[in-house]
């Protein structure tokens, strides 16, 4: 058995999601290789070679892989598949974009967002926004799957694997990157944060969202998240969204402020270690999931909390 992990990176640094994915791959029990596909990404391959449990890093360094375009990367993975029993990537927007295409080209099923591995062909994954957990078995010769990163610990980085170049495939020329508008923030990344301060429609408007949440987040060293309602209302950018169709998070502490607790939001944060809810409505569903609930006016309570944690 042999497993190929698809590394997620930005051509200069490995994303943390790759470390969680390697942990999942190691649980399958075979030799783990990592494919780094990018442009000018030799440093990333060196970083991947240091992940514990990785036996070999394959580096495809070419301009057609620099922009994470699914068509070119999927074709490369398909061309690299010989000898592997499992192809694994993080269930991030990168992995979700590429892996189903890989599976279709290989004529195999794809298994989305696994949270547990029961055996090399049997996996557990959430369905219906996490309201049910399905245990599925794949009969395909190659298992192509994505991993929910919060369900697996990050692998340590004290290893030293060999880096082996692979010949790049052609540029299919089907798509090209025009540009990215990435949210710049000095705060931790949402998916990797230990503490998340998250706001919902109860905050009322864009100004309040930032005025109330940012000082608290800064004091706690927390990332800022949001409910779908807050994103839809334009309080914050789309990449703040926590939920079934946004980001899945599981921090040590999740503080939900002015969030009622819709099913699709709970799906994204209910695995947090400790959940605090602040809401004026004592009947809000979020309180059924919160370890600590504080009922009251968030416009008074949040500044008070910010002062108190200092």
């Amino acid at each position, binding site marked *: 058995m042999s497993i190929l992990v698809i590394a997620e990176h930005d051509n200069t640094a490995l994303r943390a999601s790759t470390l969680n994915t390697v942990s999942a791959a190691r649980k399958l029990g075979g030799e783990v290789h990592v494919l780094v596909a990018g442009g000018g990404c030799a440093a990333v391959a060196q970083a991947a070679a240091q992940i514990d449990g990785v036996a070999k890093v394959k580096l495809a360094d070419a301009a057609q892989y620099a922009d994470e375009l699914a068509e070119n990367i999927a074709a490369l993975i398909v061309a690299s598949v010989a000898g592997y029993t499992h192809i694994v990537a993080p269930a991030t927007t990168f992995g*979700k*974009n590429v892996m189903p295409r890989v599976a279709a080209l290989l004529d195999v099923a794809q298994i*989305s*967002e696994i949270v547990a591995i029961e055996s090399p062909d*049997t996996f557990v994954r959430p369905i219906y926004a996490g309201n049910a957990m399905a245990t599925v078995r794949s009969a395909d010769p190659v298992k192509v799957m994505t991993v929910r990163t919060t369900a697996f610990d990050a692998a340590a980085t004290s290893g030293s694997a060999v880096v082996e170049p692979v010949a790049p495939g052609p540029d299919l020329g089907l798509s090209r990157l025009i540009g990215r508008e990435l949210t710049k923030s000095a705060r931790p990344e949402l998916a990797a944060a230990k503490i998340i301060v998250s706001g919902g429609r109860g905050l009322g408007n864009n100004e309040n969202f930032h005025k109330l949440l940012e000082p608290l987040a800064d004091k706690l060293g927390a990332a800022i998240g949001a409910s779908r309602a807050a994103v839809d209302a334009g309080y914050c950018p789309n990449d703040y969204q926590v939920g079934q169709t946004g980001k899945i998070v599981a921090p040590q502490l999740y503080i939900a402020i002015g969030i009622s607790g819709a099913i699709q939001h709970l799906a994204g944060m209910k695995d947090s*270690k*400790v959940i605090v809810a602040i809401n004026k409505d004592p009947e809000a569903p979020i309180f059924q999931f919160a370890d600590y609930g*504080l009922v009251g006016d968030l416009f008074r309570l949040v500044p008070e909390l910010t002062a108190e944690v200092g």
Partner: protein
Amino acid sequence: MKVLVPVKRVVDYNVKVRVKSDNSGVDVANVKMSMNPFDEIAVEEAVRLKEAGKATEVVAVSCGVAACQETLRTALALGADRAILVETDVELQPLAVAKLIKALADKEAPQLIVCGKQAIDDDANQTAQMLAGLLGWAQAMFASKVTPADGKAQVTREIDGGLESIEVKLPAVISADLRLNEPRYATLPNIMKAKKKPLVTVKPADLGVDVTPRLTTLKVTEPAKRQAGMKVADVKDLVAKLKTEAKVI
């Protein structure tokens, strides 16, 4: 430009599903079924492209049991011109659906296929990407803005770090994210008109597609329950508990 829109019949998003006591699946008997919300956004986008004079025809497609006709009628009421049902009682997994739609796309030759990014029942988020792969077309997933022009489409995509703009060659497959548009409601006159729009039914065998499932569901269980905690009296109490009891700050 012809636009194809695949739509799925799913348990309505307001229904909280229950896991069956024998762990064989979730109970979908006698629950309200609706069009997958992301597919509604896809239909809306296709109809808007037609209203803007960029698309000439919108064809809605659904794969599944006979009752998927209702979902297709909804798509027709929202503005699709005609509909195709690939009817089967076999449990369809994303790869099978992608193969069925590919077979239809080979016949219909659309320039654009607009899918919802994810169905809210199996949460797979696969069919659009698989379809693009099978067709050998460009893909633009998780779209929040689509502008087709001159044999290409510029698409803004929602990605983990923010937004990304790409240009894809047509024909292409696009998947709709939440913020692509706000779908309209079907009006009563349009619901009546939809009843007269053409809807044809074909079988997977007519398309030469083997839809046998590749994944076997061994069991479906309830997720681990979270115990409801306590209400705290005030901010001081909360901070004290977070420090001494939960030890997270």
